[in-house]
């Protein structure tokens, strides 16, 4: 990685152009727009040649770390390998030029992908029906909660406006609930890191719409009391929402539908390896149990009973429309391709291999890093910082942030840090099923070296990273006097 200090605006020179458009032979131009409706002057965009543009963005890319660059053990993000065939199929010209409002009979191939992918996700998760329209995990959560509220309201039950969320949950859960007009009630975790069922029971009354859970939870632990939780919530008239952020642990092995969940979302960019794209686009399909199917957002893909052809339909009883068209279709094509590559044989190995890798790394490092809960983990686990961190010595203390930054020097992406909030020095590691034992060993080696350095040369960590294109940014300055544009 190499530092490069230009903004595209700084390459601009009056009169240069980088576009290739045909000659204008029309009698009229946009100059004929009435004056009062016209923009005054040109927009402030750079004027650069095509080679300028290409070099600039290639130089920018050289300052970026991706899964294709190296190991990316970012907890709860499932940074597995992103197959290249997925990119190829998603760009197929037979799909790329389809307008979303084209008549159904002209998009049967696209509708087939939507419909088959929905069916496959149903089978993999044990749900009855899926909408693929939500654009991301958070969008899926919001959609799922809209379905939950619609369910209660459709039964004339308007007082269910509270939602139970574990204290270990990701901040998105309460934020989605708030956007959906639900009041958040926290349920505590036990010292073993799972939901405290004794804390849960008294919360369950007739104002509770449901509970949001990740399983395995954010500590990477399977919620062993899930049967009991399911029975209690259902007995109280609530629904169970499954946050699919951690579905990779269970893929091919355990299905949320079989655990009794009523609504769930998947993150296709995690579990089904459509790339993260630097923060999107993803896709957050939502699956529901049979009794909620009629509440899925519109449009849905159905089949004409007369012709057997696929068609788009609008549901009047549903939660409503949550997207302009049918979701991030290009992303859906990648997930569809990934499932074709995996097939029945390999999908069964996905969860187990991810769990194998996580436990292997955990066992290899727990003598140097604090493991708050000694237990079999699923696809990820959380350390609470270094065992020897010179705690209490302000000049030598090494924090989780320092460990993360030093890892960058060793050519690894940092794990997720300071999440979950249950511990002060959380380091959350998720290795995924696509990493070899050699890569895992190299990472383990780096983490152990860092633990040594924490004792021998804490300043080296406290001032890390040293080998990256830029070093630690001044975030206080960025937030106090925000400069948000050129």
């Amino acid at each position, binding site marked *: *990685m190499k530092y490069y200090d230009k903004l595209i605006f700084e390459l601009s020179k009056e009169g240069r*152009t980088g*576009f290739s*458009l045909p000659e*204008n032979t*029309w*009698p*009229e131009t*946009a100059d*004929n*727009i009435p004056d009062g*409706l016209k*923009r005054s002057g*040109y927009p*402030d*965009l750079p004027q650069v040649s095509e080679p300028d*543009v290409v070099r600039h*963005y290639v130089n920018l*890319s050289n300052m970026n770390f991706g899964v294709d660059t190296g190991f990316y053990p970012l907890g709860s993000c499932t940074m*597995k390998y*992103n*197959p290249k*065939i997925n990119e190829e199929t998603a*760009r197929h010209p*037979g799909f790329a030029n389809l*307008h*979303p409002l084209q*008549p159904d009979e*002209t998009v*049967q191939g*696209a509708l087939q992908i939507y419909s088959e992918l929905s069916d496959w996700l149903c089978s993999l998760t044990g749900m009855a029906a899926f909408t693929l329209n939500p*654009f991301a*995990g958070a*969008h899926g959560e919001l959609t799922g909660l809209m379905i939950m509220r619609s369910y209660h309201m459709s039964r004339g039950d308007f007082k269910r406006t509270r939602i139970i969320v574990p204290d270990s949950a990701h901040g*998105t859960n*309460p934020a989605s609930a*708030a*956007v959906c007009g639900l009041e*958040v009630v926290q349920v505590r975790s036990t010292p073993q890191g799972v939901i405290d069922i004794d804390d849960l029971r008294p919360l369950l009354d007739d104002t509770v719409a449901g509970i949001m859970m990740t399983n395995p939870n954010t500590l990477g632990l399977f919620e062993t009391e899930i049967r009991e939780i399911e029975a209690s919530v259902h007995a109280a008239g609530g629904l169970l929402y499954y946050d699919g952020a951690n579905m990779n642990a269970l893929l091919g092995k355990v299905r949320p539908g079989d655990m009794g969940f009523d609504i769930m979302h998947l993150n296709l960019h995690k579990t089904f390896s459509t790339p993260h794209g630097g923060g*999107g686009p993803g896709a957050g399909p939502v699956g529901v149990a049979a009794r909620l199917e009629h509440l899925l957002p519109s449009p849905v893909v159905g089949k004409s009973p007369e012709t057997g052809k696929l068609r788009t339909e609008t549901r009047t009883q549903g939660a409503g429309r949550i*997207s*302009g*068209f049918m*979701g991030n279709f290009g992303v859906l094509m990648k997930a569809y*391709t990934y499932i074709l590559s*995996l097939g029945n*044989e390999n999908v069964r*190995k996905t969860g187990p291999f991810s*769990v*194998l890798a996580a436990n292997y790394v955990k066992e290899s490092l727990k003598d140097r890093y604090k493991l708050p809960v000694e237990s079999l983990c699923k696809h990820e686990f959380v350390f609470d910082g270094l065992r020897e961190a010179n705690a209490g010595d302000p000049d030598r203390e090494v924090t989780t942030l320092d460990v993360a*930054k030093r890892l*960058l020097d060793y050519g690894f992406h940092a794990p997720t840090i300071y999440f979950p909030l249950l511990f002060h020095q959380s380091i959350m590691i998720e290795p995924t099923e696509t990493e070899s034992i050699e890569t895992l060993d190299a990472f383990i080696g780096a983490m152990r070296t860092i633990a040594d350095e924490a004792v021998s040369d804490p300043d080296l960590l406290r001032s890390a990273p040293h080998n990256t294109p*830029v070093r630690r*940014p001044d975030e206080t300055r*960025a*937030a106090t006097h*925000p*400069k*948000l*544009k050129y």
Partner: protein
Amino acid sequence: MGFAYFPHTDEDIRTMLGRIGLESMDGLYSDVPEDMIFKGDFEIPDAMSEMEIRRRFSELAAKNVGLSVFCGAGAYDHYSPSVVQAIVSRPEFLTSYTPYQAEVSQGTLRYIFEFQSMMAGLTGMDCSNASMYDGPTSAAESVMMSVNCTRKKSRVLLSGTLLPQVIEVVKTYCKFHGITVTEIPYKDGCTDLEAVRTELQAGDVAGVLVPGINRFGIIEDLTGYADAVHAAKALLIVYSDPSALAVIRTPGEWGADIACGDAQTLGIPLNFGGPYLGFLCCRQEFVRKLPGRIVGETVDADGKRCYVLTLQAREQHIRREKATSNICSNQSLMALYVTVYLSLMGPQGMKKVNDLSYGGAHYLHAELLKTGLFREAFGKPFLKEFVLHSKLPVERLQKALLDVGIFGALSCGGDLVSFCVTENRTKEEIDRVVSAVIRCHIDRCRDIVNANLK
């Protein structure tokens, strides 16, 4: 059989299990109740090789019909330069996560900063976020933001001339978020300012959402809106096609507080509806209420210029249920499409794209009227999309166009149909629309004559 994405040999598996102290892979799920372990077969296909996958996609693609697109309605067939695809395919961009570790994410952070700069420039607003999911959800977030910015008000006004999917998505969000929505009727194809004024008198309105170019393709004259809305202590939100903003009056020039819309028109292929890209810009005073990611400039420990995600105290991972939104990503890669596209186009390219679209659309508009088979609907200024009253039955007209490989004459209710022309349409294609219309009319006359003869 080995599998290309899983590197595990039998020996590797034994070594790893040994370190964990397990005999077999089954032991990894000993914490899961036995009856929850799935033992059946999944109803998914057997594993396919790349060759088989390619064949499958060729077969699927053959079930679609490629059409010459004369329809807009929120998704536009603009040209996307070859450079765009080349850059967005760089794996360093494609396979990275949200840029939390700024030291190894300067590529992503820098192009998002450029994106924000360009969007602020195009919309004439002070600042932009790093992008939203799509246009309709950006409108919904804008409406929630207006409620957030105007304490204790919870009603918003939506123009009836917004695209139907925008109205529907905003209504869905508002229904659950506890915001009352009043739809403003339209008059002569444009939002009725008098109706807006009347509604504002109640004093409970937080935001007013109107389109810059509306569902009929009309460039709305928003004179008087900002004054009326601000006098009522509400926020003016303008929904725009950012490509058009290179030539038409910007939300900033109209005095808007928030600008939103879909940036698909800036180099993103149609792709059957997604992924696209919502944008959200605002005036400086509201920046801390802006939802979504925002990138800011700062310096690193050595004083070097660098970029970080900033103003994070607004976001869900810190604020939880009090966050400005639940969104915790952006459509980052799509923002890269737009940034590269706008870099290539520059001010002249954007002008030319609009000139070509304007020229083609006005040519088609004139030619269709010349056939005598259409009647002017509103007679208002338009850019690349317009509606006409059709004297031909709408379904028959659409079918006649489809028969010659054209997707157009989208129904806008009653006998109103819309057409859209971008720079991607040639004169030959436009003439084909006109001759198909005439052929449709001749066929219909013949059918009527035949029916009468019988």
